[in-house]
């Protein structure tokens, strides 16, 4: 159950060069939402859009391909996408909401559906929840420290940020590449990530991430009926080219390894919390 329930898993990338140009990897989220918007599977999607500050995302409701394109790529810092979940049904009047988020945000979406305590009329309006693989996230100032202090690169000159091959990478507009070992970034992780036991967005309709697939491609898990419906239609419409996950390197074993590592490491943190003080513990949110 390390990888959650899923119906199918493939390596995929968008067939749209415009999307791929600014995409993190295979452009899966942007392409899938663009198609779902066009087909009326969703009326709009809550995505991490741009803000006034460089690399600081702001949740926005995208109702056009242009808005989706503006939100492409991974920011590695917090975007409280769920904060717009009810608003999407109110100010924007969406009946079919698309939402992208980290595994914890997918947990929040499903909790909002099953325990809609402050989420009036939200549960049956989640049409497509796309989850991304996530090991941990950084507060904005943490990201700033990593990029500006450790990589010695101004945030506003950064074209792309990436995590891979055990390193954190910053690519600048002018072609410079800075990298630091992931070990250096650990102290900047937000503490709330260390109790999360989900790497691959188990509760999403479709979940995706770079790990397992070759460069420029993404691994895609299709997990639910909603996900299956959107994904199979998108494939039928030629939105993606795919390869069987068994035939690509490094493949599912690496995904499984990272997912297991996250569970093991964070379960240890959870266990330690129980005896953090002297005869006293910290809360375990899962008990």
């Amino acid at each position, binding site marked *: 159950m390390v990888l959650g329930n899923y119906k199918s898993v493939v390596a995929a990338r968008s067939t749209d060069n415009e999307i791929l140009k600014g995409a993190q990897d295979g452009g899966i989220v942007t392409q899938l939402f663009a198609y779902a918007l066009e087909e009326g599977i969703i009326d709009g999607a809550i995505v991490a859009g741009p803000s006034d500050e460089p690399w600081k995302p702001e949740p926005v409701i995208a109702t056009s391909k242009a808005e989706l394109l503006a939100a492409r790529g991974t920011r590695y810092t917090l975007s409280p996408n769920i904060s717009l979940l009810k608003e999407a049904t109110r100010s924007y009047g969406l009946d079919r909401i698309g939402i992208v988020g980290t595994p914890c945000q997918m947990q929040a979406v499903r909790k909002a559906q099953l325990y*809609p*305590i402050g989420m009036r009329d939200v549960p049956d309006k989640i049409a497509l929840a796309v989850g991304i693989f996530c090991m941990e996230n950084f507060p904005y100032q943490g990201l700033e420290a990593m990029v500006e202090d450790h990589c010695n690169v101004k945030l506003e000159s950064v074209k792309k940020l990436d995590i891979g091959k055990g390193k954190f990478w910053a690519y600048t507009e002018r072609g410079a590449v800075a990298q630091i070992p992931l070990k250096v970034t650990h102290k900047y992780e937000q503490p709330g990530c260390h109790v999360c036991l989900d790497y691959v967005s188990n509760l999403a309709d479709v979940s995706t991430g770079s790990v397992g697939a070759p460069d420029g491609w993404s691994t895609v898990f299709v997990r639910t009926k909603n996900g299956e419906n959107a994904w199979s239609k998108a494939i039928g419409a030629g939105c993606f080219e795919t390869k069987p996950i068994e035939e690509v390197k490094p493949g599912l074993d690496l995904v499984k390894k990272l997912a297991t590592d996250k569970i093991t490491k964070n379960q240890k943190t959870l266990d330690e919390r129980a005896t953090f003080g002297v005869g006293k513990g910290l809360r375990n949110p899962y008990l």
Partner: protein
Amino acid sequence: MVEKITVGHVHLSGCTGCLVSFADNYEGLFKILDDYADLVYALTLVDVRQIPEMDVALVEGSVCLQDKSSVEEIREAREKAKIVVALGGCAAYGNITRFCRGGQWNQPQMESYVPIGELIDVDLYIPGCAPTPQQIRNVCIMAYLLLKGTDEQKELAGAYLKPLMDLAQRGDEACGCDLMYDVINQGLCMGCGSCAAACPVRAVSMEYGKPNIDRDLCIKCGACYAQCPRSFFNFDVMNEFEGISELIKGVME
């Protein structure tokens, strides 16, 4: 269809918003009343003057300590109901009535309003102002399955209702501060924004990915904390979200 459960709506110091929210299930309300629950007591809907014996009492509103009938009614509800549910922020946490200081025409002496948990044991909380129609519906269905379902359904319903029962054990004070005390101060917040979405009065905003609470706006309804995935997260139930959503949809059709 097997026998129905009996449900009553006990109205204390509340604004009827919880009852309206229940009614906002529209045809779903009729489905519940047709197939799963007999409404045996509800001042606005049913012509019954005395609180009868019932399986579930949904209590709306807080108790005014200076209002004798209000105090008697909550005691009576506890005696006559198998399960007492605090329906909404006022019954669970006092909500906006916490701020009352009396002086209102024509009962100026009425100044002390407390959540029902200060006077009786409560079995289950449904926080929020108003609690959502969908949350009330889910509790109704699960209460029905718990009391009348198969063994398997009883197990599912028990797992579903447990966190809401735990909320009733946790205490009868809640506000945006709970996010600080029990989530951020405990190193658990991951900045998803559920609290901001849940707040009915927009007292919660997200600053640098963490909730910021405007305490002047907070009405103490408990929605933000209860909606937070790090207040409780129930793997038994949430991992089965697709099946349970279909189950709920199925029984409401």
